[in-house]
């Protein structure tokens, strides 16, 4: 097994700042979209096993709605925007006005619901990646957004395949945003999973030494 935490404190702070800047920009977009105040939590940086990744969102079998964007370019990786099913439903309701959305059995789902979630994910992850690109000066090319509503394990492991050929740990920058006004407002998690090589490029672009 390799070193579990390869980063210095300074490097961890840099990764947190990346989460701050990305999710901060995404929270602003979300606020405009639902016309409400949106807050964000302090990002956390985790270097964890694949099983622990599943636990982040409530365990491998928990149903989630996830929009995933694959980043290519100078710092490849994945960005996920993850909502619980309930949160995804209230998000859809607040955007489309449609009540009683059935997200889990959406084989014949009306396109409006699917595209509402996809487009929201696209806008938010897009803001995240734009902010990241501006901050680091790196060229980041996001893919189109992919949506999956299914078990967290199944959805998240799809994003771990590239990483898993190199290591058994994932580096995850986790930032939660939430609708500020109510207790049970919409919460969503941004997970940024840089490929192992990408961290060195992120540090370098910000003038931080790779060896800390």
């Amino acid at each position: 097994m390799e070193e579990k935490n390869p980063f210095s404190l300074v490097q961890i702070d840099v990764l947190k700042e990346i989460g701050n800047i990305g999710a901060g920009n995404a929270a602003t977009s979300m606020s405009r979209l639902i016309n409400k105040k949106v807050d964000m939590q302090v990002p956390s940086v985790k270097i964890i096993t694949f099983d622990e990744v599943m636990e982040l969102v409530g365990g491998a079998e928990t149903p989630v709605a996830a929009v995933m964007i694959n980043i290519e370019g100078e710092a490849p990786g994945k960005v996920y925007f993850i909502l619980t099913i309930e949160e995804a439903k209230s998000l859809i309701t607040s955007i489309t006005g449609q009540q009683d959305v059935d997200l889990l059995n959406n084989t014949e789902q009306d396109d409006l619901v699917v595209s509402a979630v996809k487009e929201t994910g696209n806008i938010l992850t897009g803001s995240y990646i734009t902010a990241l690109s501006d901050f680091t000066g790196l060229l980041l090319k996001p893919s189109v957004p992919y949506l999956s509503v299914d078990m967290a394990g199944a959805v998240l492991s799809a994003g771990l395949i590239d990483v898993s050929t190199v290591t058994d740990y994932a580096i995850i920058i986790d930032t939660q945003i939430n609708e500020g006004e109510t207790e049970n407002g919409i919460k969503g998690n941004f997970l940024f999973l840089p490929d192992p090589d990408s961290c060195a490029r992120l540090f370098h672009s910000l003038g931080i030494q790779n060896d800390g």
Partner: protein
Amino acid sequence: MGDTATVVKVGIADLNIVSVPDKIRTSGLGSCIGVVIYDLSNQMAGLAHVMLPDSAMAKQDNLNKYKYADTAIDILVDKLIVAGAEKFALKAKMAGGAQMFQFTSGNDFMRIGPRNAAAVEKRLKFHRIRLIAKDIGGNSGRTIEFDPETGKLHIRTISEGERVI
């Protein structure tokens, strides 16, 4: 359902074996494959949650042998035989290998499910273990549970309910 039976859980890129009355289970299979190798006469079974097809694609020095179809199946077979299973009696079932996101263009990792499935079948053939049943592909996550007493594999999905193979 026995009251004292335990359900042994297998994580991602992990494997384990059980015997009656215990059952063995793994959750949230996406492109990964859950492969069960069992000996009904000795009432035992092993399950591996395979993530990648071939250990030759590893880019790490101390590779995790439980992660790859070829190495995980070798270890599973060994463990079963050490625990008292008969090699000639071994049979297999498998599930998983879905595509969770509907990619339009493809780099390799996006098609990993079918490659995982093919690699598992190939390694089973190498060990002359008959594949009795499989539930592969589609785009739903699966949770599977195997009972070494009945030889039945229960497969649960969120949108399509449960089936038994």
